[in-house]
């Protein structure tokens, strides 16, 4: 009966497997010692082959073997594997363990032993092997999926056999598909053209330039017409995706650059655009905002380490208020006396910027501050082709949009917004009309300063934060305000988008500097044509 026969077959297979394990174990002991010795040998080629074997051997030896192999690989990578005097131990906080058996190594003084050096090659193989082993040892599907994604990128220790075993073993259907595709993609040089075509198709699923190059290289020696056709088709497909990805990438970098420009200019759009104060310390207010974010981070790290991941969010009010406070002091102590002498504000704010930079330098130091980068501002998501949406820039874009909307609503809808405009147009008459000009000036200046602080926060994942960071923003932010039309917030955002987008279109062609030069020249020419910016205030003078 076929049915019974199958059962028998299953039983036999299990038995053989069990037997193999039993037989393998004593042999493995010797193997393990050999592998460890090779890793410790300091000979590059031996180390490399030992690491590759670890993956395969670990897998073959079943889950216990895989766990052991993983332990070794991780110890090697983390440099806690110590060798010397024919001894190999893993240094753990609870004392050393013998590498080949993982039994405590009593009486071994690890300080006389040294970690084998890990060069890039070895590290790559180790990383790959580690991921393969995770694929076999991790309990959760998510962790295995992560390992699979990693293995996809780092294939040094990967063989079709290993993947076959992994597919076999995998219980999660989706992950099994992923692994099958991955396995197929390894067969680019398979003798069977069908497998080669499958490999090409598997590879083409991820449309990157790197994969295109892999296909192109495989096709170089190809003779089979079907494979060639499949390759050409796959490459054409990748090319289309790449092109689209490139367009998106350009738009995204344009938007991200624009968000930086806009954030830097937003506070100025109020202080200079609305209030008419040529604030040369605007960059320093940005710097203050970034420092406030850093202090928030440190405070949270000390007091509420659990919330550290959210420090950038928690710092939003802190950065805003810190810069606003500095702005408030500036206004109350100095700027207030100068509203009827706008040129003197140039002088005063120059001095204030000097003061702020150096105060921070003397008190905090001139080194770059260390910012912890939570997940939402580090790394990026591959979107399409080679377009990776980097999170830190996405954060800046989000903050810029948020700030823009909030400020527009505030200035358009609130009495405060109307008061600011009235006061800047005619300070004396505004007072006579019952507006508290002092307070309005103070609040408006503080708002403009606080927005600069917010910019500092949003830009801290993008730029180095040090006392001098603000000076770099002066030209750009004045440019944005002027191009947009002094006093127009919408102008500022349009100008920032324009400058940002044109810049990133030119940049890959002529380089960063030439792009900047061309953009600035364009702006200069544009101003000749519209001497009061994009959104010039209209009407009688």
């Amino acid at each position: 009966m076929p049915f019974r026969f199958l059962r028998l077959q299953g039983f036999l297979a299990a038995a053989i497997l069990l037997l193999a394990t039993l037989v393998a174990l004593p042999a493995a002991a010797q193997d393990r010692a050999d592998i460890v010795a090779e890793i410790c040998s300091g000979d590059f080629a031996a180390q490399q082959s030992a690491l590759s074997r670890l993956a395969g051997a670990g897998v073959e030896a079943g889950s216990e073997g895989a766990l052991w192999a993983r332990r070794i690989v991780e110890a090697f990578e983390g440099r806690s594997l110590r060798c010397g005097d024919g001894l190999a131990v893993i240094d753990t906080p609870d004392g050393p363990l013998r590498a080949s058996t993982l039994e405590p190594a009593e009486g071994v003084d690890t300080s006389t032993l040294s970690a084998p050096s890990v060069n890039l090659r070895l590290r790559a193989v180790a990383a790959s092997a580690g991921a393969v082993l995770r694929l076999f040892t991790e309990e959760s599907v998510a962790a295995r999926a992560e390992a699979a994604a990693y293995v996809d990128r780092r294939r040094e220790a990967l063989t079709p056999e290993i993947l076959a075993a992994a597919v076999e073993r995998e219980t999660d259907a989706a992950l099994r598909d992923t692994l099958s595709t991955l396995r197929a993609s390894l067969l680019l040089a398979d003798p069977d053209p069908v497998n080669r075509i499958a490999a090409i198709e598997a590879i083409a699923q991820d449309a990157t330039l790197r994969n295109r190059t892999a296909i192109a290289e495989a096709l170089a020696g190809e003779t089979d017409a079907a494979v060639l056709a499949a390759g050409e088709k796959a490459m054409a497909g990748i090319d289309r995706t790449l092109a689209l990805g490139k367009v998106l990438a350009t738009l995204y970098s344009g938007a991200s650059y624009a968000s930086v420009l806009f954030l830097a200019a937003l506070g100025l759009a109020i202080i200079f655009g609305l209030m008419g104060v040529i604030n040369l310390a605007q960059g320093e207010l940005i710097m203050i905002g970034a420092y406030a974010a850093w202090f928030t981070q440190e405070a949270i790290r000390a007091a509420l380490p659990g919330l550290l991941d959210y420090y950038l969010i928690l710092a939003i009010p802190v950065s805003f208020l810190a810069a606003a406070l500095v702005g408030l002091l500036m206004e109350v102590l100095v700027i207030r006396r100068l509203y009827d002498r706008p040129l003197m504000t140039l002088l005063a704010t120059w001095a204030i910027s000097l003061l702020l930079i150096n105060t921070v330098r003397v008190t905090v130091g001139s080194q770059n501050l260390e910012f912890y980068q939570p997940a939402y501002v580090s790394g990026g998501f591959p979107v399409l082709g080679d377009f990776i949406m980097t999170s830190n820039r996405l954060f800046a874009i989000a903050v810029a949009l948020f700030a823009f909307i909030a400020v527009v609503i505030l200035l358009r809808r609130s009495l405060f917004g109307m008061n600011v405009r009235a006061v800047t147009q005619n300070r004396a008459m505004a007072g006579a009309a019952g507006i508290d000009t002092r307070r309005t000036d103070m609040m408006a200046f503080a708002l403009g300063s606080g927005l600069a602080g917010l910019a500092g926060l949003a830009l801290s994942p993008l730029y180095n934060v040090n006392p001098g960071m603000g000076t770099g923003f002066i030209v750009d932010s004045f440019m944005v305000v002027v191009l947009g039309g002094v006093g127009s917030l919408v102008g500022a955002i349009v100008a920032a988008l324009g400058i940002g987008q044109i810049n990133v279109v030119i940049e890959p062609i002529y380089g960063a500097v030439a792009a900047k030069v061309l953009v600035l020249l364009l702006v200069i020419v544009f101003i000749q044509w519209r001497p009061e910016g994009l959104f010039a205030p209209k009407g009688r003078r």
Partner: protein
Amino acid sequence: MLLTISNLSQHYGSARALDGVGFSVDKDSCTAVLGRNGAGKTTLLQTLMGLMPATGGRIELDGADITTAPPHRRARGGLGYVPQGREIFSDLSVGQNIEIVLRNHRVSEPDALRDEIVTLFPVLGEMWHRRGGDLSGGQQQQLAIGRALASRPKMLILDEPTEGIQPSIVQAIEDAIRDLKGRMAILLVEQYYDFARSVADAYVVLDRGRVVKSGKGADMERDGVADLLTV
């Protein structure tokens, strides 16, 4: 007494523009300030509003000393000011020019007041959404008066309010002033002697920063004020 000014003085640099000016204004009465060009009328009103700090003397509004108060305190204390040269907020719309005062003063029944102002100066209603700075000179003058009324002042201070205004509206303004007279005090600087005489309960004549004559409105003719205004 609503407003009492005593011994007020003011300089521009070393030039004296007001020199020991003193007079007082009754509740709901109309006082005309007269004087030749450069006599110091505008300076007086500006000092009164706190647009420049007085260099000497004392100003009392409703019994409170406001000599050093900032302009917005005086405005909220009940002074509504129509400056010479209009000085409207040119980048705000006509409506906003009025609204901003209504809202900063938190006047009661703003809608009624707004309607009242528009009825007084229909052109403001027509141009409600236009930019203040785009209005013609006379339209701006009307806006300036409307704006001052929007704070429901206890005392309306007008610096040559009919300057540059078409005759029919001058009449309207004159009527309005007559009409307002019972409801608020009015301090009026006016070159147009006949009009001043016809509305004023009291008058003050300035010359080179000094009060050279003052008295009841009804006595202007008898006191020969007209002669003081010519050479």
